[in-house]
């Protein structure tokens, strides 16, 4: 009904206006400052400098690669986890939610140093790199992309689970039962019936995870250190330590474009299905 559909909007119109106008405009002006010289004139020098610096483009590619890997792993973990939760009782579901959200609630410092213990030279996972031949040194996974990815996945999983769970809670259980009676095992049912129906939630959760991953720099810094410079950390340093505002803004704009393009591609792909 048209009338009932419009009414909620009247209620929140001020909020939406505040959010969009009050936020988009200043962010846009900050981003635009990427095209200015420290003196105030217009230039594209900040962008040429970025593309000419192997350090910067290397960090950008690394950030992109890590964000993609993390998002893929997050979805691989979150889909079955959310599926199991959606089929549990409300009580178990709440308990599980707390269990996976709890890590996010601890200080990033504690969380990261938990991982330092686990994957550091004396930790139980220290031999993985030798075994995998990813690193010749005896420092465990500290200072490796794999180490950062493991720590980041844990931070991102709760958000993806939340998003997928919302969709799966609404999927009719009888679809699974129908599939089972027609000769599909549990695994094939999950693969052919449940996961395809969870795609909208996986897209939303995956997008969120990707965006959060690419803009994170505390965890990469604490686990990866100077060996794994990521773009978000470089932007932060440029803005707060080097006080080179236009350059930081230019890099942020590039990062935002990458995120938007990724979202656009995902949306296109999922719409074609």
């Amino acid at each position, binding site marked *: 009904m048209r009338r009932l559909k419009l009414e909620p909007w009247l209620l929140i119109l001020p909020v939406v206006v505040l959010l969009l106008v009050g936020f988009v405009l200043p962010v846009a002006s900050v981003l635009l400052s990427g095209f200015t010289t420290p003196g105030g004139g217009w230039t594209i020098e900040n962008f040429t400098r970025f593309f000419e610096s192997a350090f910067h483009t290397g960090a950008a590619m690394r950030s992109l690669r890590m964000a993609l890997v993390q998002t893929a792993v997050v979805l691989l973990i979150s889909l079955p986890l959310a599926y199991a939760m959606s089929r549990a009782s409300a009580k178990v579901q709440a308990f599980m939610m707390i269990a996976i959200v709890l890590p996010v609630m601890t200080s990033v410092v504690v969380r990261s140093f938990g991982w330092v213990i686990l994957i550091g030279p004396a930790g139980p996972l220290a031999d993985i790199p030798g075994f995998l031949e990813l690193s010749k040194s005896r420092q465990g996974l500290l200072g490796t992309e794999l180490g950062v990815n493991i720590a980041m996945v844990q931070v991102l999983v709760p958000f993806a689970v939340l998003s997928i769970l919302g969709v799966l809670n609404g999927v009719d259980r009888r679809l699974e*039962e129908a599939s089972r*009676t*027609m*000769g599909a*095992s549990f695994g094939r049912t999950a693969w052919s019936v449940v996961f395809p129906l969870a795609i909208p939630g996986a897209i939303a959760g995956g997008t969120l995870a990707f965006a959060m991953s690419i803009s994170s720099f505390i965890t990469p810094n604490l686990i990866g250190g100077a060996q794994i410079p990521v773009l978000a950390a470089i932007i932060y340093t440029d803005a707060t330590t080097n006080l080179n505002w236009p350059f930081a803004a230019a890099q942020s704009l590039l990062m935002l474009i990458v995120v938007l393009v990724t979202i656009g591609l995902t949306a296109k792909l999922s719409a074609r299905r």
Partner: protein
Amino acid sequence: MAELIISSVRKSFGETEVLKGIDISVPSGTFVSLLGASGCGKSTLLRCIAGLETTSGGSITVGGQDVTDLAPEKRGLSMMFQSYALFPHMTVLDNVRFPLRMQGKRYGNRAKQKELAKQALDQVRMGDFASRLPRELSGGQQQRVALARAIAGEPRVLLLDEPLSNLDARLREEMQVELIELQRVLGLTTVFVTHDQDEAMSLSDQVVLMRDGVVEQAGTPEELYRRPRTPFAADFLGAANLLDVSVEIDNSRATAVLAGGDTVPVRTSNSGAATLVLRQEKVRIGDPLSTDDSVVTATVVSRVFRGGEVQYLVEYQGAMLRVVANGESMLSAGDQVELSWSSSDALVLS
């Protein structure tokens, strides 16, 4: 030989015992209805047969194979749900192809599977809709697709959980005819769950009437309707009037004494307290046809026009009885009427 044998099946949810030892044997190719009110356990029993619920005791045998502890996908059955449960992300054809795909090599390659799925769709006259998505179909069409999907995998037993209850009255009647024709043509052993006694009687070879987790009575529709063993069965199988009577036997002639002191002849060999069962269509309003008929006087309480007939609620000595007259009958509340019935139509259950 019986295709499906259910033997002493029990099922409890926590403290609640929903099935209290069910024994049913379904011969190959027959259509059996599980009939009962909501909560009688009929749906739970169907889910136990499908393997969607584990049983708490007893065994289930399909085609001679004990399937009691098998996972649902290994039982070779198929089930059609009240909500149809079509996969919303697959086309109609892919929905119907699903059981073939899941059973793998048995149905050949992709092209062969599609051909078989198309045939199943044609059987329910939905061949033209193969490339649609379920949400683009009407309720009746979705129902046909669900049926095609259920039969495509050549199930050993077809399980139907109130598949017609979401359809409106006219569509439902149409689908009943199609369902029964398809079942006969394919010779499918079918178990059908319903709460509608009319549907159960018109479709089934055998009706299993359930009540509170036990089988109240099982038999052909005619048997259940004509020779109910309990007042509950008599009442459930068709609008029956139940009167508490006291039976006296004198010289092998039985007489029932009604609440008002009226006595009517009955056919029974047990004396004492009993229930007199009178089907509403066996009770005539007005003069008796034969002098042997039982006659009592009652008062009209209400009149409901039902098109072909008029249904009256009449009061006899504090008991409310339902009787029907033809559509032109115009009695009104308060009128005194004579009710009569042949003693051969009055059933006594003690």
